[in-house]
């Protein structure tokens, strides 16, 4: 018990130091921020870190986070060459954060269309903190989880995206989070706030990547608000170093006729937990959740999704695929809830998992809760191994067993990747999945040949 207490108090101690230091260097914060911090800290203190006894954390052990001693940093120093190598080859409006700290040097917003604002949270607060105070925390309160409470207590930096009604951002908005290897592990608590005005359109790419030796903790909260008819495509490409710890809560609010599409592509991170929740509040709203996770070594990847059909004629569609090798562990919990009298709902969910090793493990749980009678819903989950007949067919063409397995693994991933419209992302994931397979694989050459052919 004293252990648990000291874990929590270590984080609260850090918070106290941080607040005192901030007050000294920057003066007092606006009172609403201070009040929220306090509420976050109090809630976190009351809840403590979740344990395996909590239903929502049954399969995910967060002791690696709770027992960690994470510092906070103010430095955004990062080798430009390393950053360039890690950055997605994508023409984009780019904001870069180093261990949560905004780096102006590594950011390049280019020219934004009129009516579109993309800026670091610190800048948004400095310019007009009241404009931030309204939406911030509206979807993710301190009660959602101990981690959202912790984020609220520590929040300093992140990204604010505002899309005026009718605005269309052609190029993707890239939020790049780089994890740095250093003497001491650090933590960051980024916030992402997107306010998409009616009929606006944008693509948001959240990319987590870093130096391979890094072992930091990221605790992210994203709040995405889609007004009437807004269309937002949200890529989360997780390529964090294998010792990185990552917890994220992504809350989406959807007004009438809006469409939110999530691609949650998880390749990296030692411990990853994502909560993705969409509130379908207006008729005609549509949420698409596509996920692909690839775990190896001792990676632990936990995805919890929830589609809340709060209004009639709302649609959700989910397809998550997991590939687990070695002793990796995956968790998929997808829930569809249809509120009372939300008629004419369509909610489809599917999850398929591929286990490449006897010691890999998946805990998959699809859930449907329906309180209306005129609905079309389905869900299903399958877990299996590679198709032996297909392996045989490939081997009779001279392809060795490992490569045959690699090709079929890539094929399994392809089902989700085929839906990705952003080539730089799908190619990256395709190459990563191929390249991550055992050493003798060189499928990268195949991918290139295929792309070369495609280009002709």
């Amino acid at each position, binding site marked *: 018990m004293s252990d648990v207490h000291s874990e929590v108090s270590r984080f609260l101690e850090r918070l106290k130091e941080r607040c005192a230091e901030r007050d000294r260097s920057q003066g007092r914060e606006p009172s609403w921020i201070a009040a929220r911090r306090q509420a976050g800290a109090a809630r976190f203190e009351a809840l403590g870190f979740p344990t395996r006894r909590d239903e929502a954390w049954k399969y995910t052990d967060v002791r690696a986070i709770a027992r960690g001693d994470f510092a906070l940093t103010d430095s955004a120093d990062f080798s430009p060459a390393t950053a360039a190598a890690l950055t997605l080859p994508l023409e984009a409006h780019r904001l870069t954060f180093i261990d949560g700290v905004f780096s102006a040097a590594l950011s390049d917003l280019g020219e934004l269309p009129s009516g579109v604002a993309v800026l670091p949270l610190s800048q948004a607060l400095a310019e007009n903190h009241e404009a931030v105070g309204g939406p911030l925390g509206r979807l993710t309160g301190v009660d959602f989880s101990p981690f959202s409470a912790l984020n609220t207590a520590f929040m300093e930096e992140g990204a604010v995206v505002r899309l005026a009604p009718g605005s269309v951002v052609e190029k993707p908005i890239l939020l790049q989070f780089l994890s740095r290897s250093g003497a001491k592990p650090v933590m960051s608590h980024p916030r992402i706030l997107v306010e998409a005005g009616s009929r606006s359109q944008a693509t948001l790419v959240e990319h987590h990547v870093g130096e391979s030796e890094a072992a930091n903790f990221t605790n992210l909260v994203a709040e995405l608000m889609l007004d009437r008819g807004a269309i937002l495509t949200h890529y989360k490409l997780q390529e964090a170093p294998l010792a990185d710890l990552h917890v994220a809560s992504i809350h989406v609010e959807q007004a009438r006729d809006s469409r939110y599409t999530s691609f949650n592509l998880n390749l990296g991170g030692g411990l990853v937990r994502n909560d993705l929740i969409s509130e379908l509040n207006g008729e005609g709203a549509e949420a698409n959740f596509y996920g692909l996770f690839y775990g190896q070594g001792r990676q632990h990847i936990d995805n919890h999704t929830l589609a809340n059909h709060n209004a009639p004629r709302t649609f959700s569609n989910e397809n998550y695929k997991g590939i687990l090798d070695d002793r990796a562990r995956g968790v998929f919990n997808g829930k569809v809830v249809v509120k009372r009298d939300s008629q004419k709902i369509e909610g489809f969910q599917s999850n398929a998992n591929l286990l490449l090793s006897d010691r890999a493990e998946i805990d998959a749980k699809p859930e449907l809760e329906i309180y209306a009678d005129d609905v079309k819903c389905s869900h299903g989950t399958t877990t299996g191994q590679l198709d032996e007949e297909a392996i045989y067919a490939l081997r009779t*063409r*001279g392809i060795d067993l490992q490569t045959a397995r690699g090709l079929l693994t*890539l*094929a399994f991933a392809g089902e989700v990747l085929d839906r990705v419209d952003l080539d730089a992302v799908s190619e990256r994931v395709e190459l990563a999945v191929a390249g991550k397979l055992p050493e003798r694989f060189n499928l990268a050459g195949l991918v290139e040949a*295929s792309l*070369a*052919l495609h280009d*002709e």
Partner: protein
Amino acid sequence: MLEVKDLYVKVEGKEILKGLTLTINAGEVHAIMGPNGAGKSTLSAVIAGKEGYEVTSGSVTFEGRDVLEMEIEERAQAGLLLGFQYPVEIPGVKNIYLLKAALNAQRQARGEGEMPAPEFLKLVKERLAQMKMDASFLQRAVNEGFSGGEKKRNEILQMLVLQPKLAMLDEIDSGLDIDAMRVVADGVNSLRGEERGILLVTHYQRLLDYIVPDRVHVLVDGRIAKSGDAELARELESRGYDWVVEETAA
């Protein structure tokens, strides 16, 4: 190049091949014919290395190597290639991936480097044209959603790209209409050459009008009951298999 000696094979405890002996030399086209259940497909499956076939005695050697001791992929890399009667659908694996991986595996086994991408693409496109297949086939998943004829053409396409030393074609004619049959037969005929052996397994003589074999063997009850030249196939077409079966029994 291929020598099958007194081969006995069991499938699920049941003896299917009972002392089969066959020699194929480079440059020859052999056809194995026979009634259903005679063990025609078993022979090519055993040579390719399919699981579930128990060789109880006899031997299979290819260019002096003991085929039965080789891994499945080693057999293919050595130049033994089987065209399936029922090609497997492999969802998500593009044809182009299969072709490149297969070709490179073979080259690697011979100690050659990877074929450069432009050269590879040129080769594949030529072979596609030969099989009257559209380039879009390369981007499609292997055999997925292909018609019967397309699947068979795809098998021959693989042969044309991989250029095996011995091509074994198991009932390549089944399910083909006359136009597809011509394309497939032209493809196989283009493989004929002094360096190469071809083994056709077929129930019907029709295929042999297009691919004229040097030797025809009739397989009855697990062994070769009768051998002859192309004329034997025509005789089988007009008289059926019964007379061979009766001759064997007598």
